């Protein structure tokens, strides 16, 4: 059912980590959260990152999401080494190449559904009409075309997560980073969201899914397991 990972030669590598380390200084104590992680992800892949708490999952996600810089090592996203970019360029990269989906949806409460979806485009400097058009299109894609002008608190958890997915897709990112996307949802809504992910992946979207739930991880084509800041196992599921 599983086999060791081998890079399909045909696919383009869009994420490549080269012995990435991350150390935090907390007063006198130094915590080494990542101790040299190397990882390559090809376009169109669907990968889950698992591991017990404290294994470095969140740190890895922050590095992958360009929210944090590695202490050493290199991180290539697309064609560029983003490990040493300054705050401004990292913001630009986040806005242009990454789509975030969070456990607690993280929608902006005072904005409507369509405005929430528009946020990444706004920071990309999009025109008003282009934004509206694209946001409406994506809202339709996740089945929320009837709720464009609703506020997040008027929606169910599953619907809010759909808005977040639309928001993550709106700038047509290279990679979608999902952090426990089903963690706050009941199992039915969770299954629906995972179904959306499957659809997206089948349309060629690259998805990195961080979870501690093995059932959720099974939706991915490849499972990376972390332990103590290192890659413990990296397996590819053979889907029949």
């Amino acid at each position: 059912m599983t086999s060791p990972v081998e890079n399909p030669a045909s696919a383009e590598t869009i994420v490549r980590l080269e012995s990435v380390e991350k150390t935090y200084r907390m007063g006198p104590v130094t915590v080494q959260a990542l101790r040299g992680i190397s990882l390559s992800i090809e376009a169109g892949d669907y990968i889950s990152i698992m591991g017990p708490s404290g294994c470095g999952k969140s740190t890895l996600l922050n590095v992958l999401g360009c929210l944090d810089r590695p202490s050493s090592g290199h991180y290539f996203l697309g064609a560029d080494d983003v490990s040493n970019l300054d705050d401004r360029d990292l913001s630009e990269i986040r806005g242009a190449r990454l789509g975030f989906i969070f456990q607690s949806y993280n929608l902006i409460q005072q904005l409507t559904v369509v405005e929430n979806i528009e946020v990444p485009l706004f920071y990309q400097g999009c025109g008003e009409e282009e934004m509206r058009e694209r946001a409406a299109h994506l809202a339709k894609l996740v089945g929320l075309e009837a709720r464009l002008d609703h506020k997040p608190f008027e929606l169910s958890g599953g619907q809010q997560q759909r808005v977040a997915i639309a928001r993550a897709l709106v700038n047509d990112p290279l990679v979608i980073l999902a952090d426990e996307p089903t963690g706050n949802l009941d199992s039915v809504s969770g299954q629906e969201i995972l179904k959306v992910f499957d659809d997206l992946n089948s349309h060629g979207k690259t998805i990195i899914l961080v979870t501690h739930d093995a059932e959720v991880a099974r939706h991915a084509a490849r499972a990376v397991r972390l332990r103590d800041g290192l890659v413990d196992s990296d397996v590819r599921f053979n889907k029949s």
Partner: protein
Amino acid sequence: MPASHKFQRARPAPGFHFGRLKRIVRLGLKTLWLHRLRSLLTVLGIVFGVCSVIAMLAIGEGASHEAQEQIKNLGSQNIIVRSIKPPDQQKASEGSQQSYVLQYGLTYADVRRIRATITGVQLILPSRIMREYVWNIDRRLDCEIIATVPWYPTLRHHEVISGRFFTDHEMDAKASVCVLGAELVPVLFPLGSPLGKEVRVGGSYYHVVGVMAPRGKNPQTGADVQQSSQTVPNSMFIPLETAKTRYGEILRKIRSGSFEQERVELHELTVEVASSEQVMATADAVKALLERHHPKKDYEMVVPLELLRRAERTKQIFNIVLGSIAAISLLVGGIGIMNIMLASVTERTREIGIRRALGAKREDIITQFLVEAVILSAAGGIIGVLLGVIIPHFVSQFAGMRTIITFWSPFLAFTISGTVGVIFGIYPAFRAAAMDPVEALRHE
């Protein structure tokens, strides 16, 4: 793949054009509207600051305008010299040979001397002032009879509103004509025009040839002005020559239980100087001249220009005091805004984290919070300006005080309140932008 590859932007960096700003402003308004009461309370400091500045400036401007008007009526090129009873009159009258005739004041000789020796003097206007009842049949009014010369209206900037002033010819002919002050007309002639009618003063009748324009109401702006505004009480003008023949040089004042006689040639001299630059120098010269001939100090000098300058200085001080009050209240308002913005930044840490994750740069966050602070202070400024314009209106309506809103004061107040927003919004905005995105996202 090269190890260090300079990353290329997908799109050109977004410029700062109007559409973007509009969206940021709309977002700011929406956010502030969510906390209506809090925003309103925050803004109150600025509102009161701006409103009090404009209203007080308007009231101050009105008061000083009135004072200056009064002074200007006296003529900024004029020097007014007035006879007063010398301070030692009691002793003088007791020890004097003429027993009860008190002699003091300006004389015709003074006029001749000033005219002969002081250059720069253009015109001299002598006048005598007597207090008498003026009658029309059975209506009477206590009145100042001002005996003067035909060029009085031009020199004292006091216009005739109907009819005319008396002429040189009437002056020479010692004609019994008079010009009434506007205040007399409604009392003596409640029906119809007084022109062509007659009024009685003592035993003689005067033909009314004209009516003077009304002068400002009772001034509340200081003793100097009040003293010098001789024309403010009811007054009636007659030719100086006529007065000389009618009254002679000696005035008798009969009061209950006392009887005194005064010999005063002229009560008031108005000296017009060719240009206002020369006024102060000429005033000194006139003073020196009079001092030599009036050892008893039986005169006083009023230089309207000096009063005007003094009034302007007072106004300047007033403005400085107002400015300080304004500065303090705006400072307090600004601190209020800063306080609430800091609270808002903390409260919205997560939103900041989300926005940063979705591609917002530091400057985007700074702009967002700065715009909110400016909206608060500008809204406060607008409300303050409105109140500041309305309040003086009511003050003039109900307190009868004159108020003037200078056109620049609302603009100034508004600009300053906007600036306050920027200044006090910068620190919270920078705090918001300086947050670590990871920390901000983790914030509950």
